[in-house]
């Protein structure tokens, strides 16, 4: 079934160099629509760099990033760059070290995420200054959407608290909800389970399944192998900036290249100590 699904995101020959350091070297993979794709690898493998390229925070040194929209049109993400990856291509992301608007309330965080839609409804700020009916309806709809997500992540009680006052696990969930309020086609999660306890991780897995069921595809970086193996449809393994494996969880788990990358084999140890 999944073999025939159109690749939502096609990464081809992605290379990212910082001065003399090649952080990502000729990486290519596909993330299919309706799937959870995981990118794993040891520390420093270049996972976050790949993420930053996809989400427009870095401009890749080389390579193409194609996003296929529902109507079949293809968007070159590396040409969009910046915030347009989020606003035009509808690729949302979260951050490894949570980036909420700490001094704004939980509800405000979710409304800021709907900025572009509200701005258009507010006549770019001018009509809404006069309080037109169209804008008020749009704002009600935005609050309704926020309320829906708050219900889903179990934070409706804390809607009027500052986001910075939430416990760590709740902040993680809120950041995901905030990204989802932009109505993305692809949600990129950078280590969503980092720092969560087992129960919170369980709830996260359920939330991610929910999101996939609602039609949004997911791409995630994760170190919690239990979680990755359980929820992913497809796994890409990076090591030292190169892709070393690509396939289903079962195939990746059995791949000798992956095992040696994680556990280290003697050849590699020698090569590293020699370098």
């Amino acid at each position, binding site marked *: 079934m999944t073999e025939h699904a159109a690749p939502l995101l096609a990464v081809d020959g992605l290379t990212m160099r910082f001065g003399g350091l090649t952080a990502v070297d000729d990486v290519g993979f596909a993330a299919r629509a309706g799937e959870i794709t995981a990118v794993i690898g040891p520390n420093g493998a270049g996972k976050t760099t790949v993420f930053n390229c996809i*989400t*427009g*925070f870095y401009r890749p040194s080389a390579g193409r990033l194609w996003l296929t929209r529902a109507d079949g049109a293809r968007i070159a993400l590396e040409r969009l760059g*910046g*915030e*347009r*990856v*989020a*606003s*035009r291509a509808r690729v*949302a*992301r*979260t*951050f490894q070290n949570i*980036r*909420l*608007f*700490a*001094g*704004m*309330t939980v*509800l*405000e965080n979710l*409304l*800021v*995420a*709907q*900025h*572009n839609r*509200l*701005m258009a409804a*507010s006549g*770019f*700020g001018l009509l*809404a*200054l006069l309080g037109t009916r169209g804008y008020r309806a749009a704002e009600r709809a935005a*609050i309704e959407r926020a*309320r829906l997500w708050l219900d889903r992540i179990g934070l*409706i009680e804390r*809607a*009027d*608290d*500052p986001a*910075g*006052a939430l416990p760590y696990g709740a902040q993680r969930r809120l950041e995901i909800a*905030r*990204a989802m309020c*932009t109505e993305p086609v692809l949600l990129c999660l950078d280590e969503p389970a980092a720092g969560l306890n087992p129960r919170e991780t369980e709830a996260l897995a359920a939330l991610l399944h929910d999101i996939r069921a609602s039609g949004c595809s997911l791409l995630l970086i994760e170190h919690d192998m239990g979680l990755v193996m359980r929820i992913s449809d497809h796994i890409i393994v990076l090591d030292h900036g190169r892709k070393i494996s690509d396939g289903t969880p079962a195939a990746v788990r059995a791949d000798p290249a992956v095992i040696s990358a994680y556990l280290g084999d003697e050849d590699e140890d020698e090569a590293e100590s020699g370098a």
Partner: protein
Amino acid sequence: MTALREAALSALVALGLFAPIVGLRTVPGEGGLALAPQPGLVGVLVGLVFFGRLGVHLRDRLRPAPGRAAVRPRLAATTARLGAWLAPALIALALIWPALVGRYYVDLAILVLTYVMLGWGLNIVVGLAGLLDLGYVAFYAVGAYAYALIAQFTGLGFWTCLPMAGLLAALWGVTLGFPVLRLRGDYLAIVTLAFGEIIRVVLLNWVSLTGGPNGISGIPRPTLFGLRFGGDEPGSFAGFFHLTSSPMQRIVFLYYVILGLAFFTNLVSLRLRRLPLGRAWEALREDEIACRSLGINITRTKLTAFAVGALFGGFAGAFFATRQGFVSPESFTFMESATVLAIVVLGGLGSQLGVALAAIVMIGGAELFREFADYRMLVFGLALVVMMVLRPRGLVSTRTPSVALGTPRMIGADMVAQGRG
């Protein structure tokens, strides 16, 4: 023992500072100025510092550390409750002010309100969007000169020129903002500072247009629906209402003009805060990278903050020009930018009430204590230091949420970011 040593050290620093500043007084002597030493006064000041430092030590020892932290939320709650009735009281007082006091105090109130308006305008840029702008006076100057020049060359009145002056200032805000807003933090501050100076230097040297250091005089006064102030012939205010003309009428009218303009500024900024644009400004102050990940165009959002701030600066400038009837580059020095910024910071970034209070204290206070001459600055500096120690985030440091499902609760200053430009 450490207490004694620290107190002695503080006293030594105080001696070094006060000896040249206070200790030497210039008196007219034979053939010029002579220096008269004032060892007594220096001794008193140094002694005060010595025992003050000892007192601080004693207080710290008597009151354990946790007590300090507990004071903060209580203080915040008090100011919040105070704000609930203080703001309406201030508005009511402002509305009837000219009926209560004489000419001097109405004039002073006009000055204070001009700074309140400037503070509210800058608050959009610094308080909401978190962009440190040290050249705000540039937009004030553009507004003032725009009105002066348009009135001079076209003969249009104040009310026609006011929006034009504001829009011109906003246009300059965008023009400046475009190249500058790529910079962040300290770099942004330096470039805006330079821009403020550039505008002043251009005004000073473009003699054929601006009159250079001589400025522009004879700027028309505002009219009330076409009624002039001054004189009692038909067509003037006094003539129309069959009153005897008095200069007080014009001053009271000016007072209500600036009060109206300030209210307008306040209403627009309060409204903007509750709109997606204002929320995006605050989000930008909190976390620029997160904004980008949500598809918010950062440059455009910063530019709008700059433009709206400049717009109100321009309005205030036009009012300044019409009130003085004369503009010259001297009125637009860096000191003005610094004063307005101090008002915003002292008031509490993003707080409308705080800015108004700070403007009253700073401008009104400075005027009232004019007779103390040089000591005024000393007291002023001391007040700033005390403020920064006791309330580092300004008079009103809590943030009111722009939207809430239930009853909105104040957000403490420890949560709210100040922006990195």
